[in-house]
């Protein structure tokens, strides 16, 4: 059984601009502009000097540009490179493994004739509602030997109940006829899953994959809690340390030495620089993932 996308015929279609459609375009355009403008402010802010921010606040076009915020973030260039490396490894491995684990679980919970299906559903749901608190979680992570290894950054986030439900929801919409005919052909559940369901699930995989990758990419919390050796910290944790320390310095009275340093490092601009640094790679990746949200593989083409 093969699945194929229908050929894209680029017809020059005349678009009928009904008043409704015009409104839609305006609505979307306005919303997108409202999303863009603050982001431009953030970019501008990240290049704004401390004294300008103090005297004049943040504006779209700063009076003078400075890279002080970025210098502060990347001051420790040796460790930044290792941080990037760790983050890339964790994000890639984590996303792939997570997609596998969550999609399989989503498939299992969507099979209505499975014994104990309700129990499994409840098992997954319950974890979203109840939480034992930080102390016991920290103790368990220690007992499980996860601390101070790279698995500390990957495993705790691997199983995501929210994503499991998204997958389950999608698999409901796949017609049972496909499953039945494959079963008659003698295929086992595992084969059916990988050969049929996964192929159909491209939009959901793209969505969940994107969200998961974002989750791993942005994560600094697991690094803080579970890893003592700063050489194993992901990028976000390293950047956050800079901000955390700047924050601390700002709240206390400090010596002239520190003030001199703070005078050149605008801590708010550093935060904005961090937003840019975080977003950059994701926004570069996004267009590639986007095409899966447009028409996906048609189910009809599979029936053949």
């Amino acid at each position: 059984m093969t699945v194929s996308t229908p050929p894209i015929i680029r017809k020059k279609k005349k678009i009928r601009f009904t008043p409704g459609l015009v409104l839609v375009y305006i609505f979307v355009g306005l919303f997108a502009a409202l999303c863009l403008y603050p982001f431009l402010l953030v970019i501008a802010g990240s290049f704004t000097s401390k004294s300008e921010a103090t005297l004049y606040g943040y504006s779209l076009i700063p009076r003078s540009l400075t890279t002080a915020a970025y210098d502060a973030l990347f001051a420790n260039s040796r460790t930044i490179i290792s941080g990037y490396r760790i983050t890339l490894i964790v994000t890639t491995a984590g996303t792939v493994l997570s997609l596998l684990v969550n999609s399989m679980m989503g498939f299992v919970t969507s099979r209505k004739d499975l014994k104990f299906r309700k129990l499994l559903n409840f098992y997954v749901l319950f974890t979203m509602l109840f939480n034992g608190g930080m102390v016991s979680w920290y103790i368990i992570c220690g007992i499980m030997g996860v601390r101070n290894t790279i698995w500390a950054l990957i495993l705790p986030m691997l199983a995501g109940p929210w994503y499991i439900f998204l997958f389950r929801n999608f698999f409901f919409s796949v017609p049972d006829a496909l499953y039945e005919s494959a079963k008659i052909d003698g295929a086992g559940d595992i084969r059916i899953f990988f050969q049929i369901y996964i192929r159909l699930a491209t939009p959901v995989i793209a969505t969940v994959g994107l969200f998961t990758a974002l989750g791993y990419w942005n994560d600094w919390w697991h690094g803080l809690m579970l890893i003592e050796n700063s050489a194993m910290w992901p990028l976000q944790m390293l950047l956050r340390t800079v901000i955390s320390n700047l924050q601390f310095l700002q709240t206390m009275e400090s010596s002239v030495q520190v003030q001199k340093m703070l005078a050149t490092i605008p801590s708010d601009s550093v935060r904005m620089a961090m937003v840019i640094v975080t977003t950059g790679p994701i926004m570069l990746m996004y267009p590639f993932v986007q095409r899966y949200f447009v028409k996906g593989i048609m189910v009809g083409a599979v029936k053949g």
Partner: protein
Amino acid sequence: MVEGLAKPALPKRRRAAHRLRRTLRGIISGWQLYLMALPAVILLFIFNYMPMYGTVLAFKKRFIPRDGIWGSPWATPLTRNFQILFKNSPAGINAIRNTLYLNTLFIVVGTVFAIALALAFNEIQHRRFKKLTQSLSFLPYFISTVVLAIFAAGLLGFENGAINGLLTGLGFERVAFFMRPELWPAILLITVIWKGAGYTSVVYLATIAGIDAELYEAAKIDGASRWGEIWYISLPMLKTTIIVLTLLQIGRIMNADFGLFYNVTQDIPTLYPTTDVLDTFIYRAMRKTGDVGISSATALFQSGVAFVLVLMSNFIARRIDENAALF
């Protein structure tokens, strides 16, 4: 399977044995499925179920590491830690009320907006415009609440705020935004929608992308307008997704986005009547003492209420759409 025939009346023990054999058969025939479920089950067990014993801290007076979580002394009476919310605590009750009210508002309006946005994106014919606007709609998600707070201050300030500058320019009176708690549910709602709509609409977009094109073809042949297509095809097909996402959000209804509430309101006391939520309330109470028993008790309370609400909503959801129910 021979259906339609009445089952013969067997003695109880035989029926039980039958059921057991059926169950075993079901388990054995589904062994591949159970295998596929294993990784998730194990991971959730380790990182979610095992730490759950920490909830018992909600009933402890003090946590002494040497005695461990179980050995630490019990609170007298057991529910003492919960009193922070209920005994002599108008602020606590206010926080609970705000949490429920604001989160419900966010869920309802947020869902409607995200769906509208997804449908709107779907209507765009120009491929480049569609890709561009959709990418842009994602940007607010990345702006941290602290950075947002900086801009909020710049926008809403009394002396130097941009909005007040505009108002005075047009001849109106200045508005002291940070002194007017009644304005803030709306302000926070706008912020939440702006920040999350792009992100959430992706889920709906993915679902729409999975709808069989033949359905739309058939409707067009029948003479349906574009609006009719949306109303009679897109929305019903989205129904399950909408219900699932809403149920999941109800599961978090007692938890507020701390960053949003603490930073964007600048933690200004005059706004507490309408913006103080459980998470910020507890934060202020815990700033000095950090009592782990009280914070556990609050977390348990939040989870408990959400659990009951999810159970109730799930029951209702099952009536509407069998598939949408979470369990």
